[in-house]
């Protein structure tokens, strides 16, 4: 009985032990935040950016974040639609300081050339020792043409 009483306060302690940013935000950003890094023909949708050209173009998709400092392992996720039978996506996640200095880069995730359809890039982590809430998160992608789309980007 006494043990059960003590155990009942584990939920309360768990809440206390969790830091504020565990309760606050990871963030999923619309790919409308993406910006063209190389020239190309593109358009924005309600959610997303599409490459209207015939060949790949490069965009940078920042993920706005609030005052939360993410942990020393940051997970990224991105949802894309590959409409090209010629080229494929190549995307790399990044962490930058507020002065634009690169802190970390993840592995590149790619899609095949011939296949078309939706893809979720996940299981995508980057180590950031000493992460602070002024760091910035972004995924840079080479988007294939033929109306291939980046829908969303997420960091947590």
């Amino acid at each position, binding site marked *: *009985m006494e043990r*059960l009483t003590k*155990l*009942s306060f584990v*939920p*309360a*302690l768990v809440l*206390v*032990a*969790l*830091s*504020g*940013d*565990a309760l606050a935000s*990871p963030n999923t950003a619309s790919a409308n935040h993406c910006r063209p*890094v190389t020239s190309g023909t593109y358009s924005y949708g309600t959610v997303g950016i599409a490459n209207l050209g015939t060949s790949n173009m*490069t965009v940078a998709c920042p993920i706005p974040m609030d005052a*939360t*400092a993410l*942990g*020393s*392992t*940051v*997970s990224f996720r991105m949802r894309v639609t590959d409409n090209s039978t010629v080229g*494929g996506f*190549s995307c*790399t996640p*990044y962490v930058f*300081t507020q002065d634009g*200095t*690169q*802190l*970390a*880069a*993840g*592995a*590149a*995730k*790619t*899609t*095949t050339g011939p*296949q*078309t*359809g*939706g*893809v979720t890039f*996940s*299981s*995508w*982590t980057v*180590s*950031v*020792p*000493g*992460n*602070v*809430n002024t760091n910035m998160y972004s995924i*840079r992608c*080479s988007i294939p043409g033929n109306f291939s789309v980046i829908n969303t980007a997420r960091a*947590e």
Partner: protein
Amino acid sequence: MTQPRLSSVFIPLGAVALAAAAYAWGRSVSTENQGDAAVAAEQAERVAVLERAVKRLRAANRKATPPSSQALAVHSTNRATASDPTRGGGEEDRDPVDGADVQELHPDEAARLAHQTRIKYFDELSQRVDTELVDGAWRHRTEAPLERLLSEHLGPNVKVSEATCASTFCRVTLSHPESPRLPSNEMFEFDLSRATLEVTEVLFDVRAEGTTTLYLKRGQAPATVQAAAEE
């Protein structure tokens, strides 16, 4: 006989419900207009008292946490990659600088502490590269191609001063005296090309302007994903 059994159910439920209600109330309070200075001041004082209690409890909790769970990210990252590639969030990887301690500090103090954490982390990582047993085969197929790719993509203003691959990390020191940091466009091109090598993520030690030390973690590059038509 029945009463103790009821208590053993209701006490835990009550604790959780109380905490959840307090949380919901706290969140709703923060969205209201706090224009009333007197109310705001009273609330601030109350919050300060409660914050001190929370800090004391967090400090006690940290002391109770076994040292292994506060290990550097290099250990937790290896654990994550080796055994659980799907793990994200990184709450248990959080070092003392991350999380609430950073949020409660002045931004400048938080940045200073983070800087210290990073220097310590990279000093230990560098020592690891110098002391761990070398995987000769991996070194042979990684070190020279890495140097070549970096030189090809980063251009003549960035020089590879040193490249050493051990068995879990490669360390590459780049000298770029004409600019404080590496060019991001060219780094992206390098990042795409390094998929041919057995390295995954890259960490940047940027403590000194004009010099960047990269730590490239050994691992298989992710397989190409096959897109699938959606129904």
